[in-house]
């Protein structure tokens, strides 16, 4: 197995783990962690494709990862703020209890 294949297998596993966490966890914080895993799996892909790709000198992949990390950080900050907003109203962060809106 070439190093690129190993990287891609690892990142796919990470993405799947994150998706499973998002789907089965009920705690909002753990769901947030799952999302972070998914985002970082994609970042890993960029790095792997950049390192083993045809033109590593250009550095596109690395630049993308730097931006994606910044975006993920901003997203996590906003996500935690929204979790706190929910916590103020229902005194816990269980998504299963957040069912005021339905129809």
């Amino acid at each position, binding site marked *: 197995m070439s190093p690129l294949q190993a990287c891609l297998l690892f990142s796919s596993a990470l993405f799947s783990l994150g998706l499973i966490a*998002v789907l089965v966890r009920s705690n909002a914080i753990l769901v947030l962690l799952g999302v972070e895993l998914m985002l970082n799996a994609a970042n890993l892909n960029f790095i792997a494709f950049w390192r083993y790709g045809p033109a590593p000198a250009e550095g596109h992949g690395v630049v993308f990862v730097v931006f994606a990390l910044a975006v993920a950080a901003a997203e996590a900050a906003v996500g935690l703020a929204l*979790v706190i907003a929910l916590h103020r109203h229902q005194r816990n962060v269980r998504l299963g209890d957040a069912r005021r809106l339905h*129809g």
Partner: protein
Amino acid sequence: MTIDHSELLHAFRPEACLVAGALLVLGLDLATGRGRTAERRARNAALLGLLALAAALAATFAAAPSGPLAAGTMLLDPLARVTRAGVLGLALLALAATPGTLRLPHAAEYVALLLFATAGFTLMAGTTSLLLGFVALELASIALYLLAGFDKSRPESAEAALKYFLFGAVAAAFLLFGFSLLYGLTGALDLPGIARGLAAQPVSPLLLVAVVMVLVGFGFKAAAAPFHLWAPDVYQGAPAPAAALIASAAKLAGLAFFLRLLGSGLTAPAADGPPAPWTGAVAVLAVLSLVVGNLAALGQGNVRRLLAYSAVAHAGALLLGVLVSGRAGPGPVVYYAVTYGLATVGAFLVLAVLDGQGGAQAHADLAGLHRRSPLLAGALAACLLSLAGIPPLAGFLGKFLVFAEALKAGGPASLPGAIALLAIALSAVALYYYLIVLKEALVRAPAPGAPVIRVPAGAALSLIATVALLLALGLVPDLLLRRF
């Protein structure tokens, strides 16, 4: 790789206006807000925000069309110009209605977030690079999550924002993973480079995975079935002016980015080649959205949830437009999205005014609206009839253009033609549920003791402008179509 900075500054002037305006709104409120009433601060912030949006709109019209800018990350073609003007106009309508309808502390932050979101939209309108596109999409999305949760006193708002955030973040992860695979396949981040890279290789399973990931991401963001589950909750729980922006301008900007990504990134340059790899998947999303949206809207007793499901149905029609845009150009589908956005903004603004008068959730809350406020009833009727596609309102022509292109593409037996026929049949269903709402507003007598509604001046102006635009675009479609 050289970048002409003066050209760049010229091209990004609308975004510069918006960001400078947002910072100015925040700074001015910080410097002078102390000791003033919340109402006065809100009015000042809204005025400054309106000025920034108007300046951005003027800069959009002033910008000359150009070739690829900034090493191929931006392209100011007709699609970008019309979309930019469209999202700025929609944001202008949504913001003009805020003073007097949205009674919140921290109005300056609300206006600043709205301006940041709009900057994200205008960047999405013209981007030809995966990197700029992703960052612009997230700039807009993160601001919209906060706008959805802005009413901190209501638990519904917090819940809606958290749901919107979780779905949106997962969508962003899917999109990023798809983008990383596209980068791996072609080694390029700009759309023309990706198209060249893909043309040089056969369709690989990895490409299909990338396309599916990108479509899942966009499906979530655009609330296309089966990824629409967040939309009804968010439209119901978010403050109405924020929901207006989420439902209209975000859709238009996302459509422009999606069109460009599929049209100039993922399509083989040869026009007579095999169909693009995304055709089948987009068709499935379109059919599911049309059917699920229209049928689920039938059972809704809540006006906002009804509008959400109708938004899902309209997303299906937009996807049909995307499907035929390769042959017809972006004109019809962008016209559809602009007119849909106008009508949705109008409907949500009516709900926003009603929110200030005790709330409007169930259909029965609209009873006797024609007695309580003829202006609101008339505007609601115009917007819903436009959504249903009744001439001479603009919604009819939007539907007509998209469906006619789909039928022209290969007759009723072809895939787009068949979807168009399905969409036409479902339009009758849609008319039914819009008319149920209008029956409450226009025919029923008001509940005894229901007060007359006083419409704030900004909201009234905004509603009149919306209806006037719907009529003007419906009667003179060339106002928009000749720009393509």
